[in-house]
């Protein structure tokens, strides 16, 4: 046995290589198993196992000697991570993911930074390539870090939530980017003096750039921003992998980067906007002139009358939005859904990709409330059969059910795929008041003859319906 170990030690690089391949394979299987809720949990476990193997083998390799420092870092990180993952509520998930994106970014920045400190100052062509990777990991990591912190602040209300624009913003950003790029190029050119100063300029510039790029983006565009920052955190890890010549970082970073890009693309498509439009237009910062100035009668309804309609319904589709999360109404909604099912009604939950503040936000909230995941459907599944639906209950959603996106070419959201609730026989809109949605656009849905407005707090309204059911 001792001989075997000493034999193995000679071939350390091979063993490390094999373990890294196993880790990468486990990450890939982990992501593959995420293709179904039935296998997803096992996939997450495999992914974690891959990470465990990678960390253990790295610790085992001879280069790592000082365990004292490692233990300090690991204990601090593990404690914070474990506690955060327990205390967080599902409504706060977007904030947590935003913050974690930022931590991934700063970790890559620090790895790149320490590679810079370690690098020989007399540059050779080989170390030149390493320098480019170092600069990239610091730059992307820095932007990810401060960008994520701002996104986190916007999500929990610490930072001004609407799009923040000021005159000359684009000019200042241009100067900033040019400054960073110049410093970055100078660091990479051999023989240029003051490399340390230039390097710190890149770090500082990256931090400022992260803030500047997220500030102009409004709250409801956060699904796109979080997806994009998710992608950045992967790309930063990837760059750090090039900086320290570690293939596992490159592959894992690329997987995460690709994941974020796919999600970003899905989010943009669901809003029928380009990524550039989301990032730079300051959408929602100004209340644009109202299109046709929709007028008409709105028909309010009370819980007792709504109950009578629901009681007679054969099919009901719930359409949740961010308002449901704010009101914490998901448990009441599930209770109402179950009562309807007991009543012989077919119940579905139609979830728009950009409902909520991050991709899949509504799904997690409803899963938390114990709604069976096969009842959660996408707009494409429910729209074709909408005419046969007796009641659509819109809970705290607005723009994603706005028929203007389909009918009114002058509407700012024209072309955005919506859940066509207006085609259902009856629509209940649960709403606090008659305020406009995030985009500041009138919603003609409220004035349709088949629409009934159930005003009040979403949770209170749904609970009132639940008690109507229970009383009879």
């Amino acid at each position: 046995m001792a001989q075997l170990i000493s034999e193995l030690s000679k071939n350390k690089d091979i063993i490390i290589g094999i373990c890294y391949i196993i880790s990468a394979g486990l990450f890939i299987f982990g992501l593959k198993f995420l293709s179904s809720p039935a296998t997803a949990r096992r996939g997450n476990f495999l992914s974690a196992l891959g990470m465990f193997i990678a960390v253990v083998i790295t610790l085992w390799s001879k280069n790592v000697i000082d365990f004292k420092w490692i233990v300090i870092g690991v204990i601090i990180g593990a404690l914070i991570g474990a506690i955060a993952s327990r205390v967080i509520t599902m409504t706060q998930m977007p904030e947590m993911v935003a913050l974690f994106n930022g931590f991934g970014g700063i970790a890559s920045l620090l790895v790149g930074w320490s590679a810079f400190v370690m690098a020989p100052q007399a540059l050779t062509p080989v170390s030149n390539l390493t320098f480019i990777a170092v600069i990239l990991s610091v730059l992307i990591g820095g932007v990810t870090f401060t960008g994520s912190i701002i996104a986190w602040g916007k999500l929990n209300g610490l930072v001004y939530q609407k799009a923040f624009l000021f005159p000359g913003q684009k000019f200042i950003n241009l100067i900033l980017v040019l400054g960073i790029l110049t410093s970055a190029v100078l660091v990479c050119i051999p023989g240029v003096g003051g490399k340390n100063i230039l390097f710190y300029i890149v770090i500082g510039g990256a931090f400022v750039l992260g803030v500047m790029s997220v500030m102009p983006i409004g709250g409801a565009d956060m699904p796109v921003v979080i997806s994009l920052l998710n992608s950045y955190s992967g790309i930063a890890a990837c760059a750090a992998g090039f900086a320290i010549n570690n293939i596992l970082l490159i592959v894992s970073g690329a997987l995460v980067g690709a994941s974020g890009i796919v999600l970003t693309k899905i989010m943009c498509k669901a809003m029928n906007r380009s990524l550039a439009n989301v990032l730079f237009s300051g959408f929602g910062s100004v209340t644009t002139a109202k299109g046709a100035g929709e007028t008409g009668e709105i028909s309010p309804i009370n819980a007792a009358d709504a109950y009578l309609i629901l009681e007679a319904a054969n099919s009901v589709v719930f359409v949740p939005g961010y308002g449901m999360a704010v009101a914490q109404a998901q448990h009441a909604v599930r209770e109402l859904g179950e009562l309807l099912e007991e009543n012989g009604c077919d119940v579905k939950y139609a979830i728009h990709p950009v409902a909520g503040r991050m991709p899949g936000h509504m799904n997690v909230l409803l899963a938390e409330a114990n709604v069976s995941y096969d009842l959660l459907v996408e707009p494409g599944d429910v729209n074709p059969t909408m005419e046969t639906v007796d009641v659509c209950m819109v809970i705290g959603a607005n723009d994603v059910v706005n028929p203007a996106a389909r009918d009114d070419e002058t509407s700012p959201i024209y072309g955005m795929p919506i859940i066509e609730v207006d085609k259902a026989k009856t629509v209940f809109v649960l709403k606090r008041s008659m305020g406009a949605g995030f985009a500041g656009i009138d919603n003609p849905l409220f004035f349709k003859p088949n629409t009934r407005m159930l005003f009040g707090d979403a949770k209170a309204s749904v609970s009132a319906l639940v008690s109507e059911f229970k009383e009879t």
Partner: protein
Amino acid sequence: MDLLFILVLAIFLGFELISKVPSTLHTPLMSGSNAISGITLVGALTSLNSEALNKSGLTVVLAVAAVAFATINVVGGYMVTDRMLAMFKKKEKAPKGAK
């Protein structure tokens, strides 16, 4: 060049894998990929080698901070993903009452 080649293949693989994830699981996907991006931990650990320790105190501070942040991602990311995925249950259809 070899590394770039692998990078490109990994990106393609990533696109393939992620496009198969249903929208229901997009939040766990993000927190799970957060955890994977904590792979920077491996990079941070390799930065804490003997050479670095002798070179300057700055590298130690940087590497320990990197280890801590990456560990938050790894531990927190996997745990919260597991917590979420445990909530996704398929329930037996309640027997439909006659109407």
